[in-house]
């Protein structure tokens, strides 16, 4: 094992995959000589050259088109869309085209591309750079969606995404950018579609992903000292969703709290809650709970961010309430 920062794990994953497979190329705004707006692509231009690492104009829609078409004819394109919010400029190419190519071509074409993109939640990026739009992409048949919460998963999932024959939306958290973690020395792929259970427990299941997972884990620690044994399920993949791990955990604990940085209505937590209410209803001992951001545009200043995003304490409170709830029936 070695210790890496989150961004460095991403950087290593790209370097290794580009080294391994000549068909892997990287495109995006400022990803080339400058090494990326947040240095995720540092060194790749020097190492792999201008043919395989390309700075692009500011044309998000066409970047996704480039990745789609390029990946249909033999490349594996990693395309960086600087912020998840900018998905809104490229949604047609991603949703109407990349996601549907395989099905509408009768399975004749594949689109092994990766769209890497940053979620700015929690880092004072404001209303147009901090949105958590993961439920948009997870709703689209044909797309895979992953969101690592630590360096090891970031590296292993990105390597798996590059090798996946489908378009994968790979979301990165700015709030985790400089966080450190152990990463295996040897080559390790993290399978897409498999959740992690970074903490086992029997009293309540906390489901989270991406930037919210560290808060879920902190909450679990805090709950421990209050006699509540929480299990944390870190989804890692939103599509495909690891239903069995979620359902298995709730079958054991009988209680569900979902935590995410997206706003609540029609957000990712709704799917998890619905799934459990459908398929583990008989195990549920208390109402499901969602701990989310407020239904408003993402605010910019720190004191408003604190109020806006779900904090560790909010998760603790939700879990305590859940555990305190008597099984009514």
């Amino acid at each position, binding site marked *: 094992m070695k210790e890496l920062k989150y961004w460095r794990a991403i950087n290593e994953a790209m370097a290794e995959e580009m080294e391994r497979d000549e068909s892997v190329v990287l495109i995006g705004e400022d990803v080339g000589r400058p090494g990326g707006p947040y240095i995720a692509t540092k060194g790749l231009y020097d190492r792999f050259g201008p043919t395989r690492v390309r700075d692009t104009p500011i044309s998000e829609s066409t970047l996704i088109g480039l990745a789609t078409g390029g990946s249909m004819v033999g490349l594996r394109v990693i395309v960086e869309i600087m912020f998840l919010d900018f998905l809104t400029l490229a949604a047609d190419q991603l949703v109407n085209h990349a996601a549907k190519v395989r099905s509408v*071509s009768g399975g004749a074409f594949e689109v092994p591309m990766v769209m890497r993109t940053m979620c700015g939640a929690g880092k004072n990026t404001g209303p147009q750079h901090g949105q958590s739009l993961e439920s948009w992409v997870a709703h689209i048949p044909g797309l895979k969606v992953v969101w690592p919460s630590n360096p090891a998963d970031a590296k292993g999932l990105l390597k798996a995404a590059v090798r996946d024959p489908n378009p994968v939306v790979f979301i990165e958290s700015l709030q985790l950018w400089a966080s450190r973690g152990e990463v295996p020395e040897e080559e390790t792929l993290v399978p897409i579609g498999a959740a992690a259970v970074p903490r086992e427990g029997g009293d309540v299941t906390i489901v989270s992903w991406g930037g919210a997972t560290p808060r879920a884990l902190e909450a679990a620690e805090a709950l421990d000292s209050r006699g509540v044994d929480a299990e944390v399920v870190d989804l890692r993949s939103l599509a495909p969703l690891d239903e069995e791990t979620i359902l298995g955990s709730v079958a054991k604990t009988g209680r569900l709290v979902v935590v995410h940085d997206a706003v609540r209505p029609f957000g990712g937590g709704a799917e998890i809650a619905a799934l459990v209410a459908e398929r583990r209803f008989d195990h549920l001992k208390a109402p499901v709970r969602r701990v989310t951001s407020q239904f408003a545009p993402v605010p910019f200043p720190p004191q408003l961010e604190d109020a806006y995003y779900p904090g560790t304490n909010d998760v603790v409170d939700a879990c305590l309430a859940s555990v305190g709830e008597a099984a009514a029936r």
Partner: protein
Amino acid sequence: MSNTDTALELYRLMCEIRAFEEEGERLLRAGRLAGNLHLSLGQEAVAAGVCSALAATDHITTTHRGHGHCVAKGGDPERMFAELFGHADGYSKGRAGSMHIADPDSGILGATAIVGGSFGMAIGAAFGAQVLGTGAVAVAFFGEGASAEGTLHEALNLAALWKLPMVFCCENNQYAEMTHVREHISGSIRAIAAAHDLAAEEIDGNDAVAVREAADAAVARARAGEGPTLLECMTYRWSGHYVGDPESYRDPEEVAAGKAADPIALLGERLAAGGEGERLEEIREAANRRIAEAADRAAGGQPASPDLLLADVYAS
């Protein structure tokens, strides 16, 4: 190929396209097809001229009005009809319909029902060809109406910057649905391309030979690494926007004038003047036969099965 052989080949392709469209219209009007059908009647010279300049390994992307491009690029009419019927042998296994023909074997990346949606995939294929050094060229077909979408601008800029092996082929048939180009586009499409530093040219889109010559030059430029070209092919949409369109928005006289410039008749006359008259009838009949047989065989196929609804959503 001699000039005459090329012209005869163009004639054949145009006849097949015409036959395909007429057969499609017949089937739809007979109530045998669901959904909408957008015909390229009158625009055959563009599809034939451009696609005949390409190899099977070159790529095209096309639009809602794309049957002609697919036939000319070597798509199998039987599988195309099967797709129109919603039959299992269709290119999309009958799931997606007439606006979604894709075929790696003939270099058809796909059609799209999103106006302006075809540039991205085409430019990506050109990028792939450049990176992989395959020498392949990509062509994006689009209508003059699609030129109002921002996607064109982005693709022109990128293709020119990176000198991608790419041909933008605008079929200016003067209408986007029910609205005339003068209400849609300010400035000319070729001028816009030229301002982005592309080679750009206006072409008589009813003259298959002229289209072919321009396409040959553009493809050669692309293959030589000299960058992209935009061809603005002036033509006319004979039929309504879709089969059944009441067409109240345009003057029957205008339509008659448009039909007078029939690209098949035009080339036929030229070939006849060159002494090839007697072969034309034969070519036309063979084309009609080929298409009719394809439609018949496709009609006899199996309807797409609901079992395959979830197939091919993901590759594994």
